[in-house]
C-alpha cells in the first residue's frame, strides 16, 4: 500500500467517523433540532400550561374565524389530531385555510393554544397562476394544491 493511498484512507476514515459522531449527536437531540411538533405528536397528558412551544400543520378547512381585525380563531391539524388556536396579531400573506403554518405560543388552561407568532409554511410546488385557472376551468384542480 503506497503512502499516498494510506493518507487517503486515513482522511476518508476520519471523515466517516466524524460524520457518524455528528449524526449520532443530532439523532439523539432530534426532539430539540426539530422546529415544531405536529398536532398528533402532542400528548395531551404532557402539556405544560404556559410553556412556549411551536406546532406545525395545516389550517383546518372551515375552522377560520375572524373575531376582529387583529384577532383570529382557527384550528391546526395534521389530519390525525386537531388543536384549537387563538391569535392576536398580523397574519402572513400565505396564511389561509388548507395552507401549512407553524404556530408559536403556549396552551392555556382550557386546552386552547394561545399563539404569539404565526408563520406560514409553503410547499415545494411551484406553478404558474394561469395554470391554476386552466385546471379550475376544466375541473382538474386538485383541492390538495390549495
Amino acid at each position: 500500500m503506497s503512502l499516498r493511498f494510506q493518507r487517503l484512507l486515513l482522511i476518508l476514515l476520519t471523515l466517516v467517523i466524524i460524520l457518524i459522531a455528528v449524526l449520532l449527536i443530532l439523532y439523539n437531540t432530534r426532539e430539540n433540532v426539530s422546529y415544531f411538533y405536529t398536532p398528533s405528536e402532542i400528548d395531551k397528558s404532557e402539556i405544560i400550561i404556559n410553556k412556549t412551544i411551536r406546532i406545525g400543520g395545516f389550517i383546518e378547512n372551515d375552522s377560520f374565524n375572524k373575531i376582529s381585525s387583529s384577532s383570529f380563531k382557527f384550528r391546526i391539524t395534521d389530519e390525525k389530531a386537531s388543536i384549537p388556536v387563538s391569535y392576536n396579531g398580523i397574519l402572513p400573506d400565505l396564511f389561509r385555510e388548507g395552507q401549512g403554518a407553524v404556530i408559536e405560543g403556549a396552551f392555556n388552561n382550557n386546552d386552547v393554544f394561545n399563539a404569539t407568532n404565526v408563520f406560514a409554511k409553503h410547499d415545494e410546488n411551484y406553478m404558474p397562476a394561469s395554470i391554476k385557472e386552466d385546471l379550475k376551468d376544466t375541473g382538474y384542480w386538485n383541492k390538495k394544491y390549495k
Partner: protein
Amino acid sequence: MKFLVNPSKFNEIADYIFKPVLILSIILFALGLLFSLIISPDDYQQGSTVRIMYVHVPSAWLALLTYAIMTLYSIAALAFRIPFGFIFNTAVAPIGAVFTLICIVSGSLWGKPMWGTWWVWDARLTSVAILFIIYLIVIFMNLSFENRIVREKVVAIFILVGSVNLPIVKFSVDWWNTLHQPATISKFSKPSIDPSMMTPLIIMTFAFMMIGLAIAILRIKTEIISRKSNLG
C-alpha cells in the same frame, strides 16, 4: 486534465478561457434576468415574490458546490501532496462565503413576506448559517498564520471537518420538521416546478456558475503569482 492540479498548466488554460467565461456570464445574466423578471409567470401561491427564488436557489447551490469542490481539493492536497489544492482553497473560500451570504440575505427577504419572519432557527437556516461561519473561519485562518506550510495544512483539515455540515444542510429539510420547505428538485423524482419557472432557474444557475468561475480564475491566478513572489 492536468490544469486542474498544475499551476502553470492552469494559467495557460485560464488565460485562454477567462474572456469567453466572462462574456458567457454576462449573456447568461442578461438572459436570466429577462426570463426571471419578465417572461416567467407569477406563482399560484406566492405571486411575484417567487422570483426571489431565481437568485436564492442558484446562490445556495453554488455555496454548497464551492464547498464540495474545496473538500475534494483538500483531500487531494493532503493525501496526494498537490499544492494546487491549497492554492485553490485560499483563493475560492471568499467566493463561497459571498454565495452563502447572498443565499441568506435573499432567503431572509423571501421569508418575511411569505412566512412572516426574517429568520427562524430551524434546521435548514441554522445549518446554512453554520456553513457561512465555516467559510468565515477558513478566510480568517488563511490570514492568520506566520508559517504558510503549517497554515495550509491546518486550513485543509478544518475544511475537511467542516464538510460534515454539507449533508446536514442538504438533508436537514428531510430529517427534521423545518419551516423551510423540502427540496423541489431532487435527483430521484420529477421536479415539482413548472418548466416555465424551471427555465430561468437553470439559466440563473449557469450564470452564477460562470461569474463564480471567472472570479475564481482571477483569484487563483493572483494567488499563484503571490506565492511565486513569496508574498503569500
